């Protein structure tokens, strides 16, 4: 039994978070969370100040994805709380562990339309894994304990803890429980040997089997298992965009991501395959195109930690529910026991390798010196393999998917589900806090970067030297591409008119700004950025007319790929 100590709700919050191993909080103070902020003066948790609460949430998200422990963000009530909603929804869409702590007006003011009151619990409910609002200070320790447990177990996600101001201030005897019960929450399933065995059988009998690795393979760190299975059964590996880098993209069996802007060889082979081992994916429309066309010709083995994903978008012949790493381990073991090891190259694998080689040679790229492919391949060439990439959302994101090969699994992160512009830069800051010793690069576009560019203040003042690799086409490029492709080149609302000057912008924050207009300059700029201990923006002007290709138009299937002409 723990000794009961008298303390305030705010102090209990910080103490409980320290017990969970929290070392830093990303946030911004305001009237309703001041008692919590006052506790920073009396504890070892570092506070990292942001200039907008949305960025605090993205930083916590980036930290969570890289460290696999929930990142924590703080915001005040009302507008502070609504500002983090986008960040919470982003984490939910990508199953990222996060704890968002908001201040709330005092309990007796709730429902009175008080100053800076917002019903954040009601607003956040559809985009959180769970939300708590402790009504007494004594509830705080257990709420924190449960919150972290929910955020990081099973399919991870964001948890909101909304704490009324009087609950922060009130002093009560506190019990910090080691054990607790959440009756309706069962994040773990036993390994499913029966269905894994069936899955092996189905894969062995398929003529053209393929692995589709999703974000779940990265979240559960199933890298070694995935590679062992691919090599043992000689299976080509495609990924979803979120699963990019679950498998080394330099591996001979790797075909890269499928989807709307998937690799040509990946989309081709996905549509030719007759059986897929789908690992931790929800078969999003951006990955598979129309649901009907995708499942028509395929036998699907679906592994997922979330039972509700089975049968939601695609009908699976075999479902393996539970942590994908646990079940892939079972598969590796069974393959060893049965001494199954494919050595002979099947006609399918031969065809896969030929297709891959063909597209490596024949995919038409932008002819200019500063085409997206050349720029991103240069970045890959100069970055150490353990470097972490985050991306913004837009054309540059899809070019990163096409042309930046992930060598070390689990080093590529993006807002893939919600597609939140402005995510990449603050997420890079969070990632760098989680792994200060590796280079962290935000592959950015000017449209997306401008949404959270004021995080430069955080990067500089908090000494978090990340690199913003800005492919600057001075436009909302992806929208411009759709207007060129589907709306008769009527360009509306997409021209950013070279405003602002990103080198000057970086410098005004005390960051380093470098413009790179040739491959030589780019080479130097990347090397300078890597050897600097200050945040750097590399501004790379590119052709605003360059499209992302291949392109599978929305509402069509992967076989209807538009290729560069």
């Amino acid at each position, binding site marked *: 039994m723990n000794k009961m100590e008298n303390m305030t709700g705010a102090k209990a919050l910080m103490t409980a978070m320290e017990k969970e191993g929290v070392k830093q909080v990303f946030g911004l103070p305001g009237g309703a969370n001041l008692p919590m902020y006052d506790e920073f003066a009396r504890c070892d948790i570092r506070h990292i100040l942001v200039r907008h609460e949305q960025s605090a949430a993205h930083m916590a998200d980036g930290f969570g994805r890289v460290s696999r422990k929930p990142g924590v963000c703080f915001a005040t009530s009302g507008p502070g709380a609504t500002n983090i909603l986008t960040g919470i929804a982003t984490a939910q869409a990508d199953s990222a562990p996060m704890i968002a702590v908001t201040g709330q007006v005092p309990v007796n003011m709730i429902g009175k339309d008080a100053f800076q009151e917002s019903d954040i619990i009601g607003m956040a409910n559809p985009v959180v*894994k*769970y939300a708590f609002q402790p009504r007494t200070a004594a509830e705080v320790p257990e709420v924190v304990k449960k919150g972290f447990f*929910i955020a990081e177990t099973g399919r991870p996600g964001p948890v909101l803890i909304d704490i009324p101001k009087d609950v922060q201030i009130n002093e009560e005897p506190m019990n910090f429980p080691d054990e607790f019960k959440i*009756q*309706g929450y069962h994040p773990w399933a036993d390994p499913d040997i029966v269905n894994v065995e069936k899955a092996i059988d189905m894969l062995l009998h398929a003529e053209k089997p393929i692995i589709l690795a999703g974000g779940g393979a990265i979240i559960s760190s199933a890298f070694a298992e995935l590679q062992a299975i691919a090599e043992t059964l000689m299976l080509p590996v495609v990924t979803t965009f979120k699963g990019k880098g679950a498998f080394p993209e330099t591996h001979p069996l790797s075909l890269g991501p499928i989807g709307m802007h998937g690799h040509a060889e990946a989309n081709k082979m996905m549509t030719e395959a007759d059986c897929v081992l789908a690992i931790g994916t929800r078969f999003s429309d951006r990955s598979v195109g129309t649901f009907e066309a995708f499942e028509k010709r395929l036998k699907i083995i679906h592994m997922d930690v979330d*039972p*509700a994903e089975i049968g*939601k978008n695609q009908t699976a012949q075999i479902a393996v529910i539970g942590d994908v790493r646990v079940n892939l381990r079972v598969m590796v073991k069974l393959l060893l026991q049965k001494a199954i090891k494919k050595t002979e190259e099947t006609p399918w694998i031969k065809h896969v390798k030929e297709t891959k080689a063909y597209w490596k040679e024949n995919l038409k790229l932008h002819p200019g010196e500063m085409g997206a492919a050349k720029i991103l391949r240069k970045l890959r060439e100069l970055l150490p393999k353990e470097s972490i990439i985050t991306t913004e959302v837009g054309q540059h994101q899809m070019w990163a998917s096409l042309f930046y090969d992930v060598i070390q699994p689990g080093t590529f992160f993006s807002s893939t589900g919600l597609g939140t512009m402005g995510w990449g830069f603050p997420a890079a800051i969070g990632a760098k806090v989680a792994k200060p010793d590796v280079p962290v690069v935000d592959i950015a576009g000017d449209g997306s970067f401008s949404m959270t560019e004021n995080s430069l203040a955080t990067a500089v003042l908090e000494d978090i030297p990340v690199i913003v690799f800005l492919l600057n086409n001075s436009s909302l490029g992806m929208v411009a591409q759709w207007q060129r492709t589907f709306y008769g080149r009527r360009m509306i609302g997409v021209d950013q008119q070279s405003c602002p000057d990103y080198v000057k912008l970086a410098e005004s924050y005390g960051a380093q700004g470098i413009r790179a207009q040739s491959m030589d300059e780019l080479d130097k700029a990347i090397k300078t950025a890597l050897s600097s201990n200050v945040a750097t923006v590399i501004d790379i002007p590119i052709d605003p007319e360059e499209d992302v290709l291949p392109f599978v138009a929305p509402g069509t299937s992967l076989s209807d790929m538009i290729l560069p002409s």
Partner: protein
Amino acid sequence: MWAILSILVENKPGILFKITHLFRSRNFNIDSISVGITENPDYSKMTITTYGDEKQIEQIVKQLDKMIDTVKVEHLDEHKTVFRELSLFKIKLSNANDSMEINKLANAYGGKVHDVKKDSIMVELTATPDQIKAFEELAKPFGIIDVARTGVAALQRSGA
């Protein structure tokens, strides 16, 4: 298909909102809903009737099950379940015979008559939704002034 879902939830504020919100956000429909506390005051039971094809119903059950506040979610087989709904009908009385006719009709459906006034009568009917619908059709010609229904309550038969 029509489905009866029985959902045991923790008896905390805000759960009804979350459950109904799930139906809205996942594009499912609620046909009827009833909520009441169970013999254990820590839990409430919600009975929701809904429509959808087999795949949709399976998805609803899985999504409900995934919710942290739900303790047990069951898709009840209507052939192995007792399910009833309480309804109140206020019906217009236009001529002298109407009162007697409506009394007869109510009796035939096992209903009770309340609040007999000069120009209206109220019928209380506890039955299955189909029976209530049938009664409503027969009462329509008299002129229905108002209806209130509780939604279905359901319990699986023992040994079923």
